C-alpha cells in the first residue's frame, strides 16, 4: 500500500505522519510537495497537521488552493482513502470534501493534552480494527477544533453514521455533539482533530492510534482482494 503525505508551507506534522506509517505498517510512504498535481501512484493520502500558510485568513483556507488539493479531490472521488488530521481536517472542510467548520476553541486557548474518544462506528476503512463503543486515548493539539455545522447537516451525519469519534470525557473545545472526527457520505474521507500518529507506542502515552493505520491497511487489502 502506498501513502502520500502532502507538505504545505507551514505543515509541521508531515514527518510524524510519515513515521507513523513506517513504524506501524512498514508500508511505503512519500512526502508530496504542495505544488505536485499527480497522486496517481498512491492508494491513500494523509493531510498532516500544522499551520499551513500560517493559518492566515482562516485555517486551511489558503492550502485548499494548492495544486495538490485538486488531485486529493480526484483521489477522494475515485474512492481512495483520504484522512485529514487537525489542520488536514480544516483543509478538507475548506475544500468541501467534508461538511461543517472548525471554530476557535470555546475557551479561546490552544489546547494540547490526551483526550478520551469513543469509537462510534467500526464499520469503516479507518476503524475496522476497533470495537464499537470502545474508548481510546488520543492526544489533541489545536486552537481551532470546535466543530460546528447546521442542524440538517448534523442530522445527516448522525443518520449516516458519519461520526466516527466523539470526545467521551470532557469536551476539550466546545465541539457540537462532542464530535472529534467525521467521514464523508461515502466513508472514504475522514477528518479528525485528534492526532493518531502521536499515539503509536507506549512511551508516547498511548498506542491506541496504531489501529487507525492498521484499519486502513486492512480495508485496502480487502478492496484489493475484491477487485
Amino acid at each position, binding site marked *: 500500500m502506498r501513502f502520500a503525505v502532502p507538505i504545505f*508551507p507551514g505543515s509541521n506534522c508531515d514527518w510524524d505522519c510519515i*513515521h507513523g506509517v513506517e513504524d506501524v505498517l512498514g508500508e511505503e510512504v512519500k512526502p508530496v510537495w504542495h505544488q505536485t498535481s499527480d497522486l496517481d501512484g498512491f492508494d491513500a493520502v494523509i493531510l498532516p497537521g500544522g*499551520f499551513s500558510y*500560517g493559518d492566515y485568513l482562516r485555517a486551511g483556507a489558503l492550502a485548499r488552493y494548492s495544486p495538490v488539493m485538486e488531485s486529493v479531490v480526484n483521489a477522494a472521488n475515485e474512492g481512495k482513502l483520504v484522512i485529514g488530521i487537525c489542520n488536514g481536517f480544516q483543509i478538507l472542510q475548506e475544500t468541501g470534501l467534508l461538511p461543517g467548520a472548525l471554530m476557535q476553541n470555546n475557551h479561546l486557548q490552544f489546547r*494540547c*493534552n490526551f483526550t478520551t474518544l469513543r469509537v462510534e462506528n467500526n464499520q469503516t476503512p479507518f476503524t475496522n480494527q476497533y470495537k464499537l463503543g470502545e474508548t481510546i486515548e488520543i492526544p489533541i493539539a489545536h486552537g481551532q477544533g470546535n466543530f460546528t455545522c447546521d442542524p440538517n447537516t448534523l442530522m445527516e451525519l448522525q443518520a449516516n453514521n458519519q461520526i466516527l469519534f466523539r470526545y467521551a470525557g470532557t469536551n476539550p473545545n466546545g465541539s457540537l455533539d462532542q464530535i472529534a472526527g467525521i467521514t464523508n457520505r461515502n466513508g472514504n474521507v475522514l477528518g479528525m482533530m485528534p492526532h493518531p500518529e502521536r499515539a503509536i507506542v507506549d512511551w*508516547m502515552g498511548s498506542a491506541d492510534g496504531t489501529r487507525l493505520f492498521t484499519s486502513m491497511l486492512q480495508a485496502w487489502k480487502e478492496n484489493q482482494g475484491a477487485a
Partner: protein
Amino acid sequence: MLHESTQTVAQAVKTIANEPTPENIRDQELYRNMGVLPEEYDQICGHLGRLPSWTEVGIYSVMWSEHCSYKNSKPLLRKFPTSGPRVLQGPGEGAGVIDIGDNQAVVFKIESHNHPTAVEPFQGAATGVGGIIRDVFSMGARPVALLNSLRFGELESPHVRYLFDHAVAGIAHYGNCIGIPTVGGEVVFDPSYEGNPLVNAMCVGVLEHHELQKGIATGVGNPIIYVGASTGRDGIHGATFASEELNEESEEKRSAVQVGDPFVEKLLLEACIEMVKKEMLLGIQDMGAAGLTCSSAEMAAKGGVGLEMNLDLVPQRESGMTPYEIMLSESQERMLLVVETGREHEVKEVCDRWGLQSAVVGRVTEGNRYQILHQGDLITDIPVNTLVDDAPIYEREAREPAYYTEFEKVDAYDQVKEVDPQAAFYKVLGSSNVASKRYVYQQYDHMVRTSTAVRPGSDAAVVVIRGTEKALAMSTDGNGRYVYLDPEQGGRIAVAESARNVVCSGAEPLGVTDCLNFGSPEKPEVYWQLSKAIDGMSEACHALSTPVIGGNVSLYNETNGQSIFPTPVIGMVGLIEKREHITTQAFQQAGDSVLLLGDTKVELGGSELQHLMTGSISGRPPVLDCKAEQTLQAALLDAIRQGMIQSAHDLAEGGLALAVAESAMSGKCGVRIDWKNELPTIAALYSETQSRVMVSVRSEDRAEMIAFFQERGVPVHEVGVVTEEPTIAISYNGQVVVHDSLASITQLYEEAILCKMKASSMN
C-alpha cells in the same frame, strides 16, 4: 571594489538629510539618547579618527550595549568552566554544542526577552522564542525541543494576570505554529517581578558533526546573502532598550518590541536546514539583537575580513527607511549567509521554493573596513574589530548589601515553627509556585515531532532521538529567593538542582546554558550579587562536570529603581544512554518502598513555607555541599541504569511533603508515609534542604538498594510505601499530618492557578 579597503583611517561619510550632523551629535551630546556615555563617544572618535555620523553612533551603541558586548559581565563570565572533553563549541557562537556520540551532537541555548515582555507581553515573549530557535538552527541543527523559565509578580494583581496570560499565549503561538514541542520549563510568582517579568526561552537541537555551522565571513569577494522577512521599523534599538532600566516611559518604547511571524520562521528553518544538508554555506548568522548590524559585523570580525553592504539591496517592508533604521531594525525571521561566489543561484533556488525572499546585499572585502552604502553614498566606514573586540569593559564596584548581614541573625525556623503542619500542607500545595502548571503547558504543543517521552510535569522533560536508543533530558531551574539571600549558595543550588532533575530522569548531565537575570550592575550591591552568584555557579559546574557552553546576560531588570531578585536560570541537558533508563517522578506500583536519599536539616530560609506564612523571605537559604551532591547524583544514576529505581523525584519547593504528593499524583497511586526522625515536624516535612531525592523501589529490591546507597555514602531513610488505596497519608513520629483522598488533593493542586485566573474574568 568601490573603496580602498586597506587604508587605516576611516573615510569621511555622508550625513543623511534630516539627521543630526556629526557636530550636532557631539555638541548636544545626542549620543546619550542611544545609551552611549561621553567616554565611550570619545573612544568611538578615536577609533574612527573623525566624528561619527548618526548611523555610526547607532551602530556602536548597539554593538557596545550590554546585550551584545557583555561589557559589564565579561570579567565575571570568564570564571565559568567552558570546556570539556565533549564540548564541540563553547560560548561565542549562536549556541553551544556538545558531542553525544555516534557522530551526533546536541546544540542548546537559553536567552532572555524580559524587557519586550514587560511592555508587550504577547509579541515580547513570542519573539523571544523565535530568536532562540534561530540561534540553534543557525548552528546547522534541527531544533527538537523548547523550554522556558518565567517569572511574574503575584496573580492577585490584574496587570500581572494580563502579563502572564499574554506571555504564555505568545510563547504558545510561536512554538505551536513552527512545530517544535515546548516540553518543559518553570513558572515562579513573586512580588519582586511585579513590574519586570522574566521570559527566558531555551531551544535544544540535534545535528550530525559535519553539519556544524559558524557565523563567519570568509573568502574575499564572496557574496553576503540576506534571507527571510523584510526589514521594517520594528524593534529599532531593541538591544539598547534591553540594556536599560524600565520606568514609566518604557511603555512608549513599544516600537522597540519586535513583531514575530512563526510561519515565515518555519520556512526559514526548513530552507536553512536544506542548505546545510546540501553543504552550501560558508557562514550563517541570525539577525537577532541589533539585527543586520550585529550579524554582519560579528561575521566579518570573526573571519578577520572587511565587508561592504549596499542597503538599497536589503528587502524593506516600507519605503523611506533611513540607513539608521535599516541597520538597527530588529525585524524578525531574517538570516545572513555567506557562500562561495557562483553559488548564489543555489541559495536563491532553495529560498524560492520555500517562498522566501533572498538578496545578495554585499561582499566580503580585504582588510577590516565595515562599509555601508546607501543610495550611492558611503554612509558608514568603521574598522570592524572596534565594534566587536574593542567594546569597553567595566569592572564595577561590588559591595555586600546591608540586608545580607542583617539576615544572618534571622532564624527562619523560628518564624514558622508554630504553623500547624497540616494547614501548611494545603497552603503550600495550593500556592501558585508549587501547584500544577497545567494551565500553562496545556497551551503548548508538547508532543509535535512525536519524540516526547516525558511530558511536562515531571522533574525533567525527555525527548528521544529517532533511530537511536538515546534520549535527551532537559530542565530549566533557578530560585531567585535563594540567590537573593545568599548569591553564592543560590548559584550553586541553581546548577545542582537542574543537574539533579536531569539525573532523576535517568540522564548524565552534559552541560549548562545560563541566563543571568539581574538588576543594574552600576549598583554595587547588584554587582556583588552577580559576582557571588557566578562564583557559586562556577563551583557547582566544576564539581558536576557540566561546563557552561553558552548563555545570555540580562541586566538592568529594574522598575523605578527597584531590582528584581537576582535570578540566574540554568538550562541543563543530559544524555540518556538507553530508553529503558527513562525514569519519572511518578510512583509505579503499590507495594513499592519509598526511600528518601540525603539527610534533612532545619533549612527554611527562602522556603515557600516561609514566604506563604510571613509574606517575605529572610535568613539564609539551604546550604549546598557540592561533594555530597556529586555523590548522590552519581549513585542515583548508577542505580537507575541498573534498573533498580521505579521513580525518582527531586525535593524542591515545599520539601518532602510536596514531593510525596507530587509523586503520588503523577503515578495516580496512593502512598503511606510513616517516618520517624529527631527533627521537628515542620522542618522534617517542609525544609528545602538540598541534595535530596525521593525514590521508590520494588519491595524485593528494598534491602539491596538501602545497602547500595549506604555503601556509596548516600544517607538513606526508608519513609513509606506506595499503596493501592488512593489516599495520601503522611505521618511523622506517629502523628498523622495528612490523610486525604488522592482525588481531592489532585483537584486542589490542578486547579489552584486556574482559580486565580478565573477570578480575573470576574473583576
